[in-house]
């Protein structure tokens, strides 16, 4: 063992253990329950209002490189798309990365098939913009006067552009990202948000698979362990004993 990584290794091993154990348990029981996410309800509300007003809703993943946030976003996109299919509301998707286009089309098509509404799908509403994503997105939001605006994924400064553009039409806005530098803007500007890991948990709730469930459980267990360690450690330090604090850095 190298110096200074023993506890890191234990944390890693614990993560892997809980991940496989709870994934396997889910395979047997098929049970997974997590707390309600307000943002999911807001998405439905936005699509409902768009239906009443006869206006479309808009979706974007932001401009960040492809990462795990997209995988959670696909599940949430499918949720939104199936609501749109159900209520006959258009959803326009602005995309910056070429590789995401076929995946997006696939996800939306699946949602429409499941609702039995494939004949109402507008395939031209999935729009690839590449590097000109930001001005094109703002232009789309203004021209279509969208009633709902969703942005889930690896967001950068385009989040505030999208929020400000859609706010002019009083759109209901729901966004989510793990990028800490953008969380403040979406928290201030949106009606509901997914804070970081919330979007992974929401994805697991909507469409549980052993991998998703295992990941949520592993993170949950570690969070509880960390809080427990913080409490014990802080009490020990208060009493003048720093042994746990030094141990955890070993």
């Amino acid at each position, binding site marked *: 063992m190298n110096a*200074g990584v023993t506890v890191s290794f234990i944390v890693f091993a614990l993560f892997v253990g809980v991940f496989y154990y709870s994934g396997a348990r889910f395979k047997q029981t098929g049970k997974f329950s997590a707390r309600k996410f307000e943002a999911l309800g807001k998405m439905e509300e936005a699509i409902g209002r768009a239906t009443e007003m006869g206006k479309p809703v808009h979706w974007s993943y932001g401009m960040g490189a492809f990462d795990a946030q997209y995988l959670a976003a696909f599940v949430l996109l499918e949720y939104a798309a199936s609501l749109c299919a159900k209520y006959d509301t258009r959803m326009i998707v602005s995309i910056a990365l070429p590789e995401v286009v076929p995946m997006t089309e696939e996800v939306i098509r699946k949602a429409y098939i499941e609702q039995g509404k494939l004949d109402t799908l507008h395939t031209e509403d999935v729009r690839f913009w590449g590097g000109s994503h930001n001005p094109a997105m703002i232009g789309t939001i203004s021209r279509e006067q969208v009633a709902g605006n969703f942005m889930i994924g690896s967001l950068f400064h385009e989040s505030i552009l999208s929020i400000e553009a859609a706010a002019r039409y009083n759109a209901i806005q729901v966004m989510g990202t793990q990028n*800490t*530098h953008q969380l*403040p803007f979406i928290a201030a500007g949106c009606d509901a948000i997914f804070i970081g890991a919330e979007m992974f948990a929401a994805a697991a709730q909507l469409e549980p698979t052993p991998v998703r469930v295992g990941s949520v459980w592993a993170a949950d267990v570690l969070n509880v362990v960390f809080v427990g360690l913080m409490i014990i450690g802080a009490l020990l330090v208060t009493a003048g004993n720093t042994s746990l604090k030094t141990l955890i850095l070993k």
Partner: protein
Amino acid sequence: MIKKLSDIDVRWLYLIMVIFAIYPLLRPIGLPLPITDRARNSFAAIDALRPGDLVFFGIDYSPTQEAEMWPQTLAIGHHLAQRGVKMVMLNMIEGAYRYEERIRDFILSEYPNYQYGVNIIALPFTAGREAAFNSIVADLKGLYQVDLAGAALNTLPLWNEITGAGDFDMYVELADAPDWWLRPMSQVPGLKLWNGTVASGASTMAPLYQSGQMVGFIYGMAGAAEYEALVKKPGSAAAAMDTQSMGHALIILFVILGNIGYIVQRNAEAKAKGRK
């Protein structure tokens, strides 16, 4: 009338902001600049370096964040050069190499005791970001063969003194992106970490400074202006701080206006509902 306050055409706000941003630039007011403990402590951390100590100087921002990062780079470049440390500069962000060239040339022209290759080296761009930093940690000498200007590194005396990342005393990183440099660089035993970053990324780094994982931390134009004052080299950041004050005052005013309008409107709506 008051209700309209919640619904002003934002372009009027933009115009007001522009006017109040330009004015103090042309007619500096010279508002005072309080120096924070954070800036003082960060200054002290670099000040504790001894002549001849070996320092990595990372320049990792693109032109998008030049306004905040370049004044920091100049101020810290001054300080490092004043301490007489040996510097190895590097960049890992696309577009940052231009600032590395500029600060290299600046130090060489301002500080005659610096001689390229003897006590200062500038390394070329490397892609891969976090993996590139890990590569430095694993094998610095194996990664780089030429310098920023394309010359072979093994002809430079300073490069031949260095065996690897473990030889360095401090890593000074000027970055517009948060934490991907810290995870790898914190693996080098005994290497002190020092960070200057943009104000928008500061909260990501704050817990890492509080925990003692970094010995110094400044951020934003304010951080640059404070540092300029501390190294006694007033520059563009100090000059821009009046605009900052104006801008903040206006934005707070806008928030208040928006809320007055909002509350009046909400009360009116509540009353209208009550009447029905």
